[in-house]
C-alpha cells in the first residue's frame, strides 16, 4: 500500500512538473512571436547606447561647465568676456563710440566741440 502510494505520489509529481515545463515552454513561445514584430534588437540597443551617450555628454558638459566656471572665477578675462558680451547685448550698451564718430563728452575738460587728434606708431 505504501509502495503504491509512493508510486502515485511520484507519478503525480512528475506529471505536474512536466505539465509545468510544457506550460513554460508554451509561454516562452509567445514572446518570440511578439519579438518578431518588434524592431531588430540591435537597433534598439544602439538607440539605448546613444541615449546613454547623450546622458554622459550632458553629465560631462555639466562637469566641464562647473569646472570652467571655477576657472573663470580665477581668471576674469576668460569667463567674463562671454558674460560681458551677453550682458552688453542684453543691455544694448555695446562699446564706446570711437573718436571722430561722436563729440567729446561735455565734462568741462575739453573746449566744446573740439575733438582730440591722435597719432600712434
Amino acid at each position, binding site marked *: 500500500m505504501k509502495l503504491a502510494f509512493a508510486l502515485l505520489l511520484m507519478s503525480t509529481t512528475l506529471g505536474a512538473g512536466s505539465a509545468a515545463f510544457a506550460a513554460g515552454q508554451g509561454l516562452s513561445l509567445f514572446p518570440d512571436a511578439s519579438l518578431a514584430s518588434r524592431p531588430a534588437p540591435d537597433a534598439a540597443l544602439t538607440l539605448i547606447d546613444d541615449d546613454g551617450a547623450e546622458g554622459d555628454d550632458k553629465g560631462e558638459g555639466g562637469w566641464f561647465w562647473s569646472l570652467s566656471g571655477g576657472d573663470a572665477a580665477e581668471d576674469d578675462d576668460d569667463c567674463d568676456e562671454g558674460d560681458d558680451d551677453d550682458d552688453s547685448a542684453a543691455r544694448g550698451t555695446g562699446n564706446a563710440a570711437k573718436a571722430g564718430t561722436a563729440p567729446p563728452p561735455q565734462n568741462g575738460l575739453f573746449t566744446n566741440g573740439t575733438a*582730440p587728434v591722435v597719432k600712434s606708431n
Partner: protein
Amino acid sequence: MKSLIAALALSTALVAPGLALARPVTLTVNMAQYGGPGAYLAIYVTDASGAYAGSLWMAGGKSKYYKHLTDWAQFTGGDVAQVDGITGASVGSGRSLELTMDLADALFDAGYTLHIDAAAEDMRDSPNEVAVPLTAAGAGVPAPGRRYIADFTYGF
C-alpha cells in the same frame, strides 16, 4: 573806418575769452617693451580733493575690458558714456601714443592730477600706472610708468 574798428573789437572780444579758457596740450605716452598684446589705457583727471573730474582718452575699443582699468572703473562705474568720442585703439608694446587736445586752462596749477590706468590681456592690471599733477612747470617733464608705460609727458 569806425565800423571796421568796432567790428574788429567785437570779434576780438568774442574770441579772446575762448583762447584764454583753452590751451592745446599734447599728451605723449611711450609704452614699455612689456611683450604682450596691445594695452588698454584710461587717461583721466581727478580734482584737488581726489574726486573724478573726467576722462581725456581711452585706448582700447572693447568696453568689456574697461573693468580691468580698475581705478577708472571704480570712479566711473565703467560708464561707457564717459569715453564716447574719445576712444581709440589699444597701444602695443614698445609703441607710442600722442594725443593733442584743447584742454581747459583751469586744469593747470589748480590741484588737478592726470592719471593713467593700464591693462593688457592675460597680464596684470595696473591701476594708477602714472599719476602726475597738472602744472605749467611740469610740462615737458617725463613721468615714468610702473609696468606697461615707459614714460608719459604732457606739453603745451
